[in-house]
């Protein structure tokens, strides 16, 4: 009798595992194969402890920092662990995810999320789903959903835990081979989390200089406090960065406030908008909208930031290191092709406008 019960329980467990695998596979087949999924899931495909720098943020990260340019120019290994319209409350969970498999010399955090959370991009379903779509099931993922979805969105959490509930109705299916790689954490993002946008917009430089400080809203302030408190427990070197965009005086006052808090907590802060000239940013061709640079701008930004990181965080040139050389260099041809194609598309746009 006892033996039979054990056999039956084992059978149920095996069936449960088979069902769970099927469930996950279907989940990845049905998830939209977008930049957020491949950026987030691709991070888990990186070799353990292979990254010098992990850049955490939203689009203000993944259209700015070119990991393969940083590799080619400075021998820095990095990844954009970023999702579109990321919310500041996601950061703590993203960092915990990043530190599960990597021990970077520096963590770079996009500080703009603390400013736009109170402004034009408040928390919303899409922002949370963008982060969750490529994040595997874990206690950390569970906590992120339970800590934020009911409180901020006032929604049931079930479809956030199990994305299939949300996505099963889509008519498009991802190829099984890709879905399988995504599921097993073997999907490799060949752009290391970068995203090309072949657009251009002519902008005018704004004067945003001010020393005033304006606090962010209470909720955002608490998120920042909690994050800084958490970061202190990690012994990580951290750099908060504001990437170049059409920064205004009001925004700058917020960033001054954030900078004070960050530096008081013992971490570094860099508003790269103060270095337009040093970066040689051309407002006629380097942006694709008010808030983002295009490939021309990202090249200048990456060069500037890579130098800054090398100078301040003792990042070594790994371009001759046999553990990295072949692997990273193998991605460069495809990278150059895509850079050239994007630039050509932008040039066409500039010409047609002229």
């Amino acid at each position: 009798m006892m033996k039979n019960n054990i056999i039956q329980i084992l059978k149920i467990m095996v069936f449960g595992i088979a069902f769970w695998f099927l469930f996950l596979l279907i989940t990845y087949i049905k998830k939209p194969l977008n930049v957020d999924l491949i950026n987030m899931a691709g991070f888990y495909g990186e070799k353990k402890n292979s990254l010098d720098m992990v850049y955490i943020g939203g689009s203000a990260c993944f259209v700015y920092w070119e990991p393969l340019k940083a590799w080619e120019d400075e021998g820095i290994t990095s990844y954009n662990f970023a999702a579109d319209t990321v919310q500041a409350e996601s950061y703590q969970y993203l960092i915990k995810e990043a530190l599960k498999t990597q021990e970077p010399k520096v963590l770079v955090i996009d500080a703009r999320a603390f400013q736009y959370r109170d402004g034009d991009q408040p928390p919303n379903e899409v922002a949370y789903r963008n982060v969750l779509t490529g994040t595997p099931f874990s206690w950390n993922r569970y906590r992120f959903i339970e800590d934020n979805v009911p409180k901020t969105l006032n929604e049931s959490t079930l479809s956030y835990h199990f994305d299939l509930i949300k996505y099963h109705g889509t008519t498009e299916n991802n190829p099984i081979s890709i879905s399988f790689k995504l599921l097993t954490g073997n999907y490799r993002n060949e752009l290391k989390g970068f995203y090309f946008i072949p657009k251009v917009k002519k902008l005018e430089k704004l004067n945003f200089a001010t020393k005033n400080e304006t606090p962010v809203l209470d909720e955002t302030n608490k998120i920042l406090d909690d994050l800084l408190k958490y970061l202190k427990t990690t012994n990580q070197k951290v750099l908060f960065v504001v990437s170049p965009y059409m920064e205004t005086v009001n925004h700058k006052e917020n960033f001054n406030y954030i900078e004070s808090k960050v530096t008081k907590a013992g971490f570094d802060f860099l508003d790269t908008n103060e270095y337009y000239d040093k970066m040689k940013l051309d407002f006629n061709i380097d942006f694709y909208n008010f808030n983002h640079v295009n490939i021309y701008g990202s090249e200048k930004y990456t060069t500037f930031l890579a130098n800054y990181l090398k100078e301040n965080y003792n990042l070594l040139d790994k371009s001759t290191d046999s553990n990295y050389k072949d692997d990273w260099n193998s991605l460069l041809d495809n990278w150059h092709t895509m850079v050239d194609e994007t630039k050509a598309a932008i040039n066409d746009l500039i010409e047609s406008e002229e």
Partner: protein
Amino acid sequence: MQIVSFYFFIFLILSVICYYAFPKNKRWIILLISSLVFFFLACSWKLVFYLLFGIISTYIGTRYMHEKCKTEKQKKIIFLITLGLIILELFILKYINIFTLTGNAFSQIFNLNLSFKTISILAPLGISYYTLSLIGYVVDVFRGTSEPQKNIFKHALFVCYYPLMISGPIVRYNEMKNELFVGKKFAWDNIYLGFYRIIYGLMKKLIIANQLAIIVKTIFGNYQSYSGYFIIIGVVLYAIQIYADFSGCMDIIIGASKMYGVILPENFNSPFFAKNLSEFWRRWHISLGQWAKDYIMYPLLKSPFFQKIGVFFKNKLGKKLGKKIPVILAILILWLLIGLWHGASYRYIFAAGILPWLYLTFSLLFEDLPQKINDKWHLKTENFSFHLFQSLRTLGFMCLIWLFVCVPKLSESLLVIKAIFVIPAAGLGQTLPAFPVKALAISMGLFIIVDYLNYKGINALEQFIKQGLWFRWFLLLAVLAMILIYGVYGPGYNASDFIYGGF
């Protein structure tokens, strides 16, 4: 908490584990606690007072009737009071508005300035079902065919056993007491059969019923724009939808109950294979039909008034026809009540009451007609094609009934019937929503096979459990994958309530 929800299945697993972890003679306590927890999670806690009212009034009434009443007259008075109380509760919660609306309609006709206000009362889950079970119980105690339950908690369990609270089946106390109060021995077969049955029910509900609901809703949600074969397609799909929906719900309920070892009566027996309407109603919502016969139809026919009518019409119309008149009147009352039970509106009274009565009356008056036609035309009736013809004819009649249910207003149903004879201008693909053809075809194919085996007296699930492990697992995982991909559920979908849960 809905029964098609992740939380329900977690609740079920925990409840089943607790049930078997408890000593055998105390297992009914877990069923009671689970039922109360389910009720609290599925309804507002405020509605528990209605449930308590039903439990306490019938408990006191039946015990008093059985133990304190010395004469038949006393017994009858207590019986009528108890019955009155539970019917009054149902009436107030479900039917009061149909009378206020009727009063207002008449006051307008006669230019009276009466304006009765409709009352919005939230009825507790399953009230239409447990009220009928309670009426049956009170009648059985009055008749002496049941002993009243002396333990109020066991009585409460009979009233609110949670799988029965959603859409029935309507049960008898005598058949349930051994199922509920005698602790069931753990058996793996019960767990597996219950699980398979739930999966089968989910397939019917989430794929077939819910996918078809989208098409049906498109057509009848805007029925003024559709005509010709669109209306026919709509009502046929509604027929399949309502059957898959209700029987799928029953599968989940019966499967969940089976996991505790508690056997519930079946509510369907392959109704779409029925050869005529009488047979259809013997196979459709069986527990309601049986209940109505036992507690309405037979008592009416045995009553002195109906006996007198029988004698009167036998003298006037002859023995054969005279005998049928009391039956016709009894089934009129029976079907009017069934119509009213389905919903407090004239639409249901007509569609689920008067129309079936008309069909059955016609069948009764001309019961020899089909045989005469067959004899005259020398039709071969004992073959598949004739059976198919009979089943389709029956389904056609039922579709006419369901057409009145599909159209929200009774007055506009006739316009929709008229529209059937108008050729539609648009093509089929242009105006119906897209649906997963293959998944629906596979699910419906499985549904038909299981129903046909059932019609032939073969229990498909019992056959399935005898198959090899790999075959079973393959089929189960395939069905589960189909449900996960093609099932209609999740955010943006708010029609997950079962159609019969609303009755």
